[in-house]
């Protein structure tokens, strides 16, 4: 039998959706939970279920992968804490992918603004100029229309196949995350501390 890649791909970036994919070559299995603030509760049981169905353990995998965000900070942290430990104890590589990467690759963006909804009124945004990311942040829908009325706007669309091909490419390129220092893409470093400044 041809050696096929086996890996887990998890996404905890959205507050109410815990998504787990197990990729075994061409075969893709999926477990998903739609429950508010339940990543901590559901993530490991979901991973256990999907691996047991396929008679696998974490150490049988070639690598583990995770969406680095942007998205729910606590959700991302639960996913990262889990997967960092998997990687450390089972000595397998960890690969991260960004939701902005997906938009960028899918739309082959040269210039424009990539947008991911962060709340009812706000977006995470990422400005691309000449295929380079020049700025990331958080912006309200109102500000977006005022500040960037004519720029081309690109939104996140689900594309499982594209995510899988992205992480496989990273694996083949040896583009692994540092399993100690890796963190989610929080984006808004400045916002959380400003109100605590004396």
């Amino acid at each position, binding site marked *: 039998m041809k050696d096929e890649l086996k890996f887990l791909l998890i996404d905890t970036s959205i507050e109410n959706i815990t998504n787990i994919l197990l990729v075994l070559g061409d075969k893709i299995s999926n477990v998903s939970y739609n429950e508010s603030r339940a990543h*901590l*509760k*559901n*993530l*490991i*049981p979901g*991973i*256990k279920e999907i691996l047991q169905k396929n008679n696998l353990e*974490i*150490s049988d995998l070639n690598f583990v992968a995770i969406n680095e965000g942007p998205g729910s*900070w*606590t959700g991302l*942290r*639960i*996913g*990262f*804490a*889990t*997967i*960092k*430990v*998997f990687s*450390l*104890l*089972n000595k397998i590589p960890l690969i991260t992918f960004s939701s902005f990467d997906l938009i960028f690759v899918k739309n082959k963006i040269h210039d424009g603004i990539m947008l991911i909804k962060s709340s009812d009124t706000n977006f995470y945004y990422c400005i691309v100029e000449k295929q380079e990311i020049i700025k990331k942040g958080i912006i309200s829908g109102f500000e977006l229309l005022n500040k960037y009325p004519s720029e081309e706007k690109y939104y996140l669309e689900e594309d499982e196949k594209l995510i899988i091909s992205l992480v496989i490419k990273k694996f083949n390129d040896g583009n692994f995350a540092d*399993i*100690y*220092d890796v*963190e*989610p893409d*929080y984006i808004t470093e400045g916002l*959380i*501390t400003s109100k*605590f*400044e*004396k």
Partner: protein
Amino acid sequence: MKKDVIILAIETSCDDTSVAVVKNGTEVLSNIVWNQNKTHEKFGGIVPELSARRHLKVINYAIDDAIKSSGINLKDIDAVAVNNQKGLTRSLVVGVAAAKAIAFSLNIPLISVHHIEGHIYSNLISHAELKFPHLCLTVSGGHNLLVLINNHFEYEVIGNTLDDACGEVFDKVARFLNLGFPGGPIIDKLSKEGDPKKYKFARPMLDQDNFNFSFSGLKTEITRFYEKNKDNSQMKISDVAASFQQAVVDTLIGKTIKAVKKYNLNQVSVVGGVSANSKLREDFKIYESKFGFKVFFPELAYTTDNAAMIGAVAYYKYLKGQFENLNLEVFPNRPL
């Protein structure tokens, strides 16, 4: 021969990331603590989101260090224990997610521990002579209880704080007096140069017939006093600090002695971050023989938040087979 029980323990309730390896509940093979004081110093208190980020950043370093420095192999670990009760939600989830990933990866039992339970057991690590029943005074930035410890996992809370926990008041007073963060050790050190009898601040609720604490009024008294006298060149900050500290120490000891008498106990265990306070330790010793009890303090390393104490509790839960499912969640406000 009885088999040794080795537990990997995790504690991320507040601002310290700690991972320990504990053998048979009392032998601490490693106790790694990544302190975040520098991260929070400039804010004069803990910023929960920063705290959670820091936990995630260092968690693999702490796990790796704890295992390597303990000299054990992964296959030697019998169970993983984690504090999932009492603390900051965002901080707790990092530790719990990591603990579950360990339990699942190594296919070993998962044990949950209450943070205050951890502090109670911190004194059993080095004091085999501490028996049940005994009285436990827990004093830290997050809790301030008087608890009767009747047996393993049999706790009866007889006194609680009605407002700020004792350690929190140390932090707030220190911040108000511009002394820095964390307040406990700073005030302890500064008080050594001051006169504890210089100013007579209130000993809150000491005359009341209960075992509850309330330090919020004392905090207000200090801040008002300081505001009124700060331009007075006669006032020394070290005297204010020493007098404040003495008021807290007298109150803690006074309440504890009342409980010792009422419940007719002869062993007192003082735990938590404030149990490191040198004046509290010194003064408690003075009352030992007079009131016929013996007082126990944890080693300094186990006064502040640490995972060794979580491993100490977990050993007894392991013996009882008290294990959790992998859908374990956090309960940040669950009482003891």
